[in-house]
């Protein structure tokens, strides 16, 4: 830690700050159509960030995270529909239940590793999807089976989480993302983060240092489920429809995971960066070529995945930040000594 780093707060962060500013300000000045893309970016960024909390740090590949997204969406929506409870309150109840569910599921699952873990999460996701599709009622609660939940339009009501324009939805989402990023940052810089990274690197060594593997994995799982449940609530309120076939789908889970992995697992901003890259591309491709070349955007997803694993195993985060740092040096002409001190910050 040397003095130049402290005095130049902006050093190495200028483009990050610019990026955040773009995300904050630009949606105000663009057409609704572009706002939709911004919302999707943040939505997937949010989901991927939540996925990252458990999978990026612990290093297990969950391909069933859509289950928790769906849980959040279903619980808060059911509370609104059948209990007339405002989603603003409901989403916290949903978050708590989802987190509890995550812990219950995680308890047996975290005993497994690698492909076994990934496959169990796939099986779990499919199981929940088929279950919800085929049951009208669970414990006397009317979950409406395959029909899904439909929210009635009531107009512009803050209390009902319903807004007339996209930009309000967008800023609500910004708040969610900010909280998630903050939580991720706090985790990364706390005992929990160090422990999770240790567990990811070498569980045996971690255990020998007194780390309770299951406990810390479950804590991460609970936080991840808690946060992704908010994304679920947002999904339900934004689309005003929750169907089990989509929200619990394997595709949804894979998409969330891919975005986080392309962005950079185990980093604070990586998943969001991944969403910033992938979502606009796929939105563009699926709008432009969806009618003529169906599947093109998902094809790009797959190819990106392969390329990232081969050439940027840490995700694009490291390369993108590196590129912008270099650019900064070029523009601002920071000296080499400073550059070294910057390099130190990187793990």
């Amino acid at each position, binding site marked *: 830690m040397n003095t130049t780093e402290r005095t130049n707060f902006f050093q190495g962060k200028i483009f990050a700050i610019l990026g955040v500013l773009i995300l904050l300000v630009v949606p105000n000045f663009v057409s609704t159509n572009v706002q939709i893309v911004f919302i999707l970016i943040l939505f997937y960024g949010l989901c991927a960030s939540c996925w990252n909390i458990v999978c990026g740090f612990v290093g297990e590949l969950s391909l069933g995270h859509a289950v928790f997204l769906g849980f959040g969406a279903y619980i808060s929506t059911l509370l609104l529909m059948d209990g007339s409870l405002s989603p603003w309150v409901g989403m916290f109840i949903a978050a708590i239940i989802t987190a509890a569910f995550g812990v219950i599921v995680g308890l047996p699952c975290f005993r*497994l590793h690698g*492909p076994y873990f990934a496959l*169990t999460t796939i099986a779990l996701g499919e199981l929940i999807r088929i279950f919800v599709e085929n049951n009208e009622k669970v414990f006397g609660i009317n979950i409406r089976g395959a029909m899904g939940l439909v929210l009635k339009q009531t107009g512009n009501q803050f209390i009902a989480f319903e807004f007339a324009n996209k930009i309000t939805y967008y800023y609500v989402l910004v708040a969610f993302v900010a909280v998630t990023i903050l939580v991720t940052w706090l985790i990364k810089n706390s005992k929990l983060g160090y422990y999770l990274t240790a567990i990811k690197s070498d569980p045996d060594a971690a255990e020998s240092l007194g780390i309770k593997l299951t406990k810390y994995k479950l804590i991460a799982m609970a936080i991840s489920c808690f946060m992704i449940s908010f994304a679920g609530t947002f999904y339900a309120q934004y689309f005003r429809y929750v169907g089990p076939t989509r929200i619990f789908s394997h595709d949804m889970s894979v998409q969330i995971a891919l975005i986080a992995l392309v962005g950079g697992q185990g980093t604070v901003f990586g998943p969001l960066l991944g969403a910033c890259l992938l979502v606009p591309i796929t939105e563009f491709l699926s709008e432009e070529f969806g009618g003529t070349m169906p599947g093109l955007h998902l094809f790009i997803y797959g190819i990106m995945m392969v390329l990232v694993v081969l050439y940027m195993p840490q995700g694009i985060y490291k390369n993108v930040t590196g590129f912008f740092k270099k650019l900064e040096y070029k523009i601002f002409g920071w000296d080499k000594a400073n550059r070294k001190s910057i390099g130190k910050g990187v793990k």
Partner: protein
Amino acid sequence: MLDSVLLAFIYGILQGGAYGAIALGLSVIFGVTRVTNFAHGAMLMLSTFLYYELYTRFGIDPYLGLLIVTPILYFLGMATQKRLITPLLKKERGTTQDPASLLLITLGLGYAINNLFMMIYGSDYKTIPTAASKSYLTIEVGDFLFTTQWARIIAFFAAFVIGITLWFIINKTELGKRIRAVSQNRDAAAICGVDVYKTYAIAFGLGIAAVAVAGACLSEYYFVQPQVGTLFGTKSFLIVVLGGLGSIPGAILGGLIFGVVESVGAQFITSSASSMLTFILFMIMLFLKPSGLLGKGGKV
């Protein structure tokens, strides 16, 4: 009652054989290279499209088309291992292991292949109307009626043919000796002069060739469509884990169990509940004995 359960059992066994045939390649690949090939379903789908093309363009029956498609898929499998997986394995040597990247690269590959075919062919359901799919084997004794397409019966026996062939190659040939050596200890095998990566590539090729054979049997009676791979891919995983990852008889046994559970289960509960049953069975198995029914013990 008994009649229908018995029949359901037989249908389940037949269907399970087909599942097993598809899962075999996956099991072999995992057993040797420790790679969970998430692109397995995509490879299956790819092979069925090749059969479809051969049939519509040249009128070649998939059973004959085997002779052409299997080598193609074998080399495709080898290329996948050489170009995508081997570089990862080499990179990982000496540094910390990151098994996730192996899952991810195959996942990405599978996603890409599936959607590439979606782009080219759209999602129409195509069929290959050969004699085997149109002719039925029927056994009728009074009220007892068993009937199924010949193609399904061939698929059932194909599982055993593929299984025995793979078993023979691995256990009784010089090549198999190398494969076994590499699968048991890759470093020791390398010291003994075995080209580890080449052997990996061959094993991967064999696994994919096996799925091409299964693809021929499947395309005789099922659809040729880009999403077929996803459907059978996920099932294959559950089957292979149930039977024991890396075990050849395990894959067939797992397939048979799955088929029977689905089919007999549906006689007592609704079909959709019965498809949940297989997932539950899989998860219970995983928690009780992660190495699977016939798998060797060891940490997972």
